[in-house]
């Protein structure tokens, strides 16, 4: 298993790009900043399944984003959170 690049609690930015293939990053989190909630395992890269087996596998992180930062008109508690799985190659440090 390769070492994880990011660690729990680290601030990360989700890339804002749209490759012309299946890529499993919904548009509402693209470009957003959150914190790593936990480090998960290695899995096939969605963009590479269009031809082949998704290898080399990439690490997944769960990223936590405050709801009030996602939606300007969010109706709820300012401690409400959205948590989402993002592959490592979609993340960069935001610290």
């Amino acid at each position: 298993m390769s070492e994880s690049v990011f660690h729990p609690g680290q601030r990360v930015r989700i890339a804002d790009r749209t490759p012309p293939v299946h890529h499993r990053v919904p548009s509402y989190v693209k470009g957003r900043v959150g914190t790593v909630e936990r480090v998960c395992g290695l899995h096939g890269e969605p963009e590479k399944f269009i031809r082949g087996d998704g290898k080399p596998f990439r690490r997944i992180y769960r990223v936590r984003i405050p709801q009030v930062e996602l939606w300007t008109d969010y109706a709820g508690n300012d401690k409400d959170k959205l948590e989402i799985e993002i592959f490592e190659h979609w993340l960069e440090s935001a610290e």
Partner: protein
Amino acid sequence: MSEQDHDHGRTFQPDHAEPTSDAARVGLALRELLIEAGHYTAEEEQQVIADMQGASPENGAKIVARAWTDPAYKARLLANGAGAIRELGFELEPYEFTVMENTGDTHNVIVCTLCSCYPRALLGMSPAWYKSKNYRARVVREPRAVLAEFGVALPDTVDVRVHDSTAELRYMVLPEQPEGTEGWSEEQLAVLVTRDSLIGTQRDLRPG
């Protein structure tokens, strides 16, 4: 070219209606080609369908009841869901199984905004509303309003965590044990656990 007889009606499940959309016909044609090319057999496909039909929310209820009665098991379940459900004879590979615990000040709810990912092999087929665009689009944006429609009125003192199941993790909520059920057996407790409480669109479970 194969000289096999292409009698479609004989190979797909007889209780399925004849396809009426182009997408359904493409799906059936793809299935025929995959089987013909030897990627898998019709028998293997039937077995997968049978296994999924055997899965149900009762499996999740057993896991919840064990967690309520065995604090050490609960700790293992929250730390490593896949390992903990394997102890009870369940398997969700290749997905990672992630259990989110409801507490007095936190409520968890699960969605897949991109499609409709759901731990089918454990909990069976997902409810129709879970796959609806309405639920998928709105529960990430206005979770409290959507939960209220399900009858869950959350006070401001309870934080909402929405989990968008977009990749290789599968989720289940661990609901709170209802008051007044202390000392109940696992079997008695499991009966109280509902499918919606495992998704997070129900919060309070009632004894009896």
